[in-house]
């Protein structure tokens, strides 16, 4: 049922999601939106791994997805803690404030 969609389509969808994530990280200024864009990049990878795993009839791709999800959850926990610390020090989550360290 899944395989009625050609593999190429999954590849392009994942590449598009990944690119949106990358552009979001590069162009958005709000730290929380940047976090969401990083999650989007990781989910593009998850989608791609699941699609490949189905087409190759090999389960290891799906196991890798679990690894990514677990690690991404831990990473968000650390990231949000850093964000709270940043908010305490600057009263803002706009990354333009972070310009003390330059050149």
């Amino acid at each position, binding site marked *: 049922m899944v395989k009625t969609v050609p593999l190429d389509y999954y590849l392009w969808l994942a590449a598009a999601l*990944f690119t949106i994530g990358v552009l979001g990280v590069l162009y958005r200024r709000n730290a929380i939106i940047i976090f969401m864009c*990083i999650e989007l990049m990781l989910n593009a*990878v998850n989608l791609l791994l699941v699609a*490949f795993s189905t087409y190759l009839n090999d389960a290891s791709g799906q196991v*890798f997805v679990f690894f990514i999800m677990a690690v991404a959850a831990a990473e968000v926990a*650390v990231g949000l803690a*850093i964000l709270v610390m940043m908010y305490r020090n*600057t009263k803002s989550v706009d990354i333009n404030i972070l310009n*003390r*360290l330059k050149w």
Partner: protein
Amino acid sequence: MNALFVITGLGIVSLLAEFGNLKRWLTAFVLVGLTAAVILAALDWNTTQRYFSDMLVFDNQALAFTALISISTILWFWLSVDYFATQTHRTDRTSLVIFAVVGSVIMASFNNMAMLFLGIEILSMSLYVLAGSRKDSLSSTEAAFKYFLMGSFATGFLLFGIALIYGATGSFHIHTIAQTIAANPAGLPTFFYAGVLLMLIGLAFKISAVPFHFWAPDVYSGSPTTVTAFMSTVVKVAAIGAFIRIFSSCFVAVESTWSLVLQVIMILTLVIPNITAVYQNNVKRMLAYSSVGHVGYILLAFVSSPTETGTIFYYLTTYSVSSLAAFSVLHLVEGNSEEITVDYFNGLFKKNSWLAVTITIALLSLAGIPPLAGFFGKYMVFAQAINHGYTSLVIVAVITSLIGVYYYFRIIIAMYFNESSAPSITLTASQKMLLFVLIALTFALGLFPDVIMTLFRA
């Protein structure tokens, strides 16, 4: 592998040491554990053991990196005693450092992309917290945030590359991937090569090669100095270990895909940080740029002959020892101030000749002046590159290392020829001992390079 078990156990014990009155013995316990890890790695020499259905393989290269990482961490604990002299965060900090070491060892011994990913994440996640461990300081917060952002951004690229390679070869195992490449001489799907390049970008972020280095100076100068010392030695060794492990075994067969890209990255990594470092007045930032520049020499050795890892390992050893010496002096001179400029070193020779001599030797070694360790590191890299016909790249590298001499000498001149009214720094016996050990190592590695080079001659 036994070394990895011991280090992981140490991390868990460090967390539990919060109970009771075990905290007092923690640092001593950790040092004993890390020494045991070095000995266990040495005992496993020449055995090549495989674990968890080939996900981790402890061959000689992995064991050598494990030993180097553990020894650097022992020296690092010695130089950063005051970092652990807090009542509330002692166990947290110790366990985070130990878990970072666990990640580093996994990065040096993985044989499966899942382990590479987990190793990088275990290492990075501990470091994001350590970078921000000075919670009330804005620059420490900024460093933690930038490190976190760039680290997870790079992981995204790495993972996308891994996914594409999995799609083309049907496996995460490095040896299976290498076999698949060899079995398809006509070429794999196009996205396989895209995957290799994406992995190259992801790992270039981790080893901070230009143009993916822009986070490094900010993070290095914003973090507490001891954490910076850890990042620029242990973490750099681990990242380069992971990089050469995958690119020298699995992707050598598709060298034409990444060789040219890596050469461009290498030239940029040699030129840009060395020139930028000249304009730095903040010494920590200058050392950050110099540490990015040293990646260029390692990449030169790698580009000229991907399978000869002995030269790279020797270079990393000399670089780690010299960096630890430089950072330990920097940490002592810095005191409680957040930003340390070249002026802090004015007249240091008259006040604290011991400190001045140590950092002079460390900087001369980093600049590559004979007979110190750094000179032989650079010499072997250049010799290897010339042997494989990369003379023009060597000329670029020699010019950039001359620029390096210039900015290292700015600090040295300030120490010997400038005057200062600042009071001298009192050193404890342990600190003097540490400086002496680091100087001795810098000389010993330079005089007896064969001790390390023979490890890699099968």
